[in-house]
């Protein structure tokens, strides 16, 4: 009985079938996009998946989508891309990457009430993606500096300066993917069956 009481609000928080399909679509965009674009440093789709999860779906998806994407990608990366990396270095940087994407999702969640199937909403998401990308990069630089470069006596300011060209590429990535996937998923949400959005259906907007 207790399990049932817990499961019911949890299932409600996940919304209807269409909402779950859109969440799955966002997870696929995050994973497949990242893998396809591996040779383009900082051109990635995890950012847009996290932002759209918060701003279009909200609720548990703000957390589930970025963590699911990373949960799939990180084992692949540590096994195939960075096989020799120490657990401490990988774990430390992973913490900053995961919390960075959670922050992006939560920032998107803050915009959710203003997001409708309108050009203005896509423009708002695209505009906000620029400062969010910079904030995400600075945050992950803190992790890189703390767990890697600090030991070599490199100061944080130097790390930030060397990050600039990579952040410009990351901004370019956001400016391309946020309007494309933002428009596609907004249209998908708008054209879904009459089933209410998870928040409209249950009124409780957490997290």
């Amino acid at each position, binding site marked *: 009985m207790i399990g049932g009481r817990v499961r019911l609000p949890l299932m409600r928080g996940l919304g209807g079938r269409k909402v779950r399909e859109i969440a799955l679509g966002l997870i696929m965009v995050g994973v497949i996009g990242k893998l396809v674009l591996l*040779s*383009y*440093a*900082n*051109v990635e789709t995890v950012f847009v998946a996290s932002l759209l999860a918060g701003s279009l779906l909200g609720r548990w998806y703000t957390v589930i989508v970025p963590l699911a994407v990373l949960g799939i990608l990180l084992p692949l990366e540590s096994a195939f*891309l*960075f*096989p*020799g*990396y*120490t657990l*401490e*270095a*990988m774990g430390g940087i992973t913490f900053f990457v995961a919390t960075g994407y959670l922050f992006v999702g939560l920032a998107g969640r803050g915009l959710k009430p203003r997001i409708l199937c*309108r*050009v*203005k909403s*896509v*423009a708002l998401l*695209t505009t906000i993606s620029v400062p969010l990308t910079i904030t995400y990069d600075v945050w992950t*630089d803190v992790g*890189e500096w703390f*767990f*890697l*470069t600090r*030991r*070599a006596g*490199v100061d944080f300011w*130097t*790390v*930030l*300066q*060397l*990050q600039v*060209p*990579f952040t*410009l*590429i990351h*901004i*370019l990535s956001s*400016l*391309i993917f946020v*309007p494309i996937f933002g428009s596609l998923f907004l249209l998908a949400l708008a054209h879904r069956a009459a089933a209410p959005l998870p928040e409209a259906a249950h009124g409780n907007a957490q997290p």
Partner: protein
Amino acid sequence: MRLRLTEGQQAAIFALVLVLTIATLYTYIRESQPPPVQRASEVRVSLAIEGASWSTGYRNVSTLNNTVFGILLEASQRLHFQVKWITYTVPEGVFVTSINGTDNGVGGMFWQYWVDGGYGDRAADKKQIFDGDLVVWKFEVPQEGG
């Protein structure tokens, strides 16, 4: 009087602004990339590789491979050790991940290079070397961002 735009007009203006912004940013990023190294006449250079518990050298050789990466690959073929790398498209360049079985990340250390004592400031295949240069690859704690 407030100008009211239709969704179509808003979409057109948004697309135009976005395309211009992306084009400007992309052009800036492309222009700020280091230029490709031109193949020059033969150069006489030396290479030293210092792993965590091993080292090797490829000293005073004449070569047409006038990049830090080129001389490393040449040495790997002559001295029979393995080099692994990832090729990035944007920003363009190679990132060496393993030399002679020593993989990046072990002990928080990574493969980095110096040319005549100067720390590598770009991808190894974008760094030109000249007559008399000494290239050193060391497995150390990194000194760069990105």
